[in-house]
């Protein structure tokens, strides 16, 4: 009963967020309201009556593994607008690290249909869904790199939890009983071959190593803005905030940190937004 109460509260809070958003027009709000309600309701019926594999959302068709994860993604990306960004051009270049099934890719395409996106995702099952979503929606200018990101090349163990693909991590300390899968790891800097208007990073505890790589590479000069999630986990040895802040310092980025960090499962996630200071 408490669970239902909580879900109803969350639903209405999200509806309020949709209508109070500064970044959408009224038609879009109504549209979002309809589609979000559809997903929330489908999630509620999930397993009892429905067994969905795909759903229509705004102008898109989204293939997913579990609808509860989809609802979380829609909430984070379309309702909380975690990755909202105002570009000065119509066809920005976006690097999406930790793309999962592609909800953020769809979001960027929704905001900027002409955007050129490079999306990175290590988990093989998830990459399959990601590619399906790109194909099903006829998205142009989107390329997929199936790799984990780190400060060196080779292979690494990825720990995947059932029903929580969002939380797949290479971190040993935080694997929380996930199944181990060996995936490729590469350096993000090797993929940067152009100006990057926005670098989005959500790599579940690998942020520190990604920034170690960027700090040492010349190609990181091409990055204009960064939107990232920094995950604080006490037991984890290596994910140092200073690696990230030092990168910002050395490259004249100004940054903002969100303090609203506590998550229900005890994790702390800080969203950091950084952009190159105008010369």
């Amino acid at each position, binding site marked *: 009963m408490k669970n239902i109460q909580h879900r109803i509260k969350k639903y209405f809070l999200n509806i*309020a*967020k949709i209508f*109070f*958003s*500064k*970044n959408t027009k009224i038609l879009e709000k109504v549209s979002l309201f309809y589609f979000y309600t559809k997903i929330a309701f489908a999630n509620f019926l999930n397993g009892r009556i429905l067994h969905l594999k795909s759903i229509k959302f705004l102008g898109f068709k989204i293939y997913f593994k579990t609808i509860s994860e989809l609802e979380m993604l829609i909430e*984070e990306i379309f309702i*909380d*607008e*975690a990755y*909202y960004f105002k570009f000065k051009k119509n066809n920005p270049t976006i690097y999406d690290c930790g793309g999962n099934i592609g909800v953020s890719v769809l979001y960027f395409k929704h905001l900027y249909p002409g955007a050129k996106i490079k999306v990175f995702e290590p988990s093989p099952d998830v990459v399959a869904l990601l590619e399906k979503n790109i194909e099903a929606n006829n998205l142009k200018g989107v390329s997929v790199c199936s790799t984990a990101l780190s400060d060196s090349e080779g292979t690494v163990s990825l720990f995947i939890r059932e029903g929580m693909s969002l939380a797949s991590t290479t971190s040993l300390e935080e694997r929380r009983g996930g199944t181990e899968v060996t995936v490729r790891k590469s350096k993000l800097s090797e993929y940067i071959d152009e100006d990057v208007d926005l670098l989005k990073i959500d790599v579940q505890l690998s942020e520190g190593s990604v920034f170690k790589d960027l700090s040492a590479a010349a190609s990181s000069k091409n990055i204009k803005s960064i*939107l990232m*999630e920094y995950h*604080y986990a*006490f037991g984890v040895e290596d994910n*140092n*905030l*200073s690696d990230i*802040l*030092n990168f*910002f*310092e050395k490259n004249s980025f*100004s*940054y*903002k*940190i*969100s*303090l*609203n*960090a*506590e998550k229900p499962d005890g994790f*702390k*996630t*800080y*969203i950091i*937004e950084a952009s190159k*200071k105008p010369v």
Partner: protein
Amino acid sequence: MFRNIGNLETFKNLLNKHMFIKIKEIHSDIKNIFSKKYLLFSQKLIFFYSYVLIIFNRFFDGRFLNVKKQRFLSFVIEFDDFSDFYWTFREIFLEDNYYFDSEKESPCIIDCGGNIGMSVLYFKYLYPGAHIKVFEALPENAEILQRNITNNNLVDVEIITKAVGAEEGEIEMFGDKRAATISKGMTDTHDKSNMKKSIKVCVVKLSSYITKEVDFLKIDIEGAEGQVIEELSESNVLQKIRRITMEYHSISGETNLLSGIVSSLEKAKFKISFVSDVSRVIDLNARSFSHIMLVALKK
């Protein structure tokens, strides 16, 4: 996830215009008091009673009363400005900004920037047996601090009327009893008229006061915190400290000393996080930002 808080904030701001929101604030304060994990139920009742007295005084201060003294919990505290007391009470006692866990009955605590003693009272509230060293450089504040400690019969509290900084010596301190600092860079972020006043104070190195393990270090010195962390780092004393909660302030002209502080702390094997503040995004390069609270925990 909550980056675009403009969303939720606009929504809350709309509500805030109404009087009933004060009731909602009080309601959430009460929920806060009764969910404090470190208090027994009877203690929560006592806390709640104190809270009621304080809210009462808050309403009447400036209207019929001129409140200079407040009884709360088992303490009685004197101060010059009720409003300052109220906001400090909120930060320290209600929001537990300086809370820390300890299995010891007498943890060793160092309090830099003790002001009139609210944090000292808080530490004694948490751990009556605590050994506290408190630094307060401004003589006006140190006087009130001393009275508050004596009036509450607190033992094991050492007051050092000196400022903490990078080098020993004498230096000018700017500002007033609300926000005084030895950091010259602070002049831009505070009311300029206040910052013109200055007084000479003695500065000491914090490391010279740390001989054994420190369970908790609190730093709130309006801009000089970078110097103190550097000094502790260079003298290899950081490893003796188990936990630090500090306020980082912006210093005009110097963008982001924060990365330097975070670096020094992480090198000494601390894990860094921030004191959560719902719906707050800190722009560390904006000249108008006030402070961010950092927590460093030894792994």
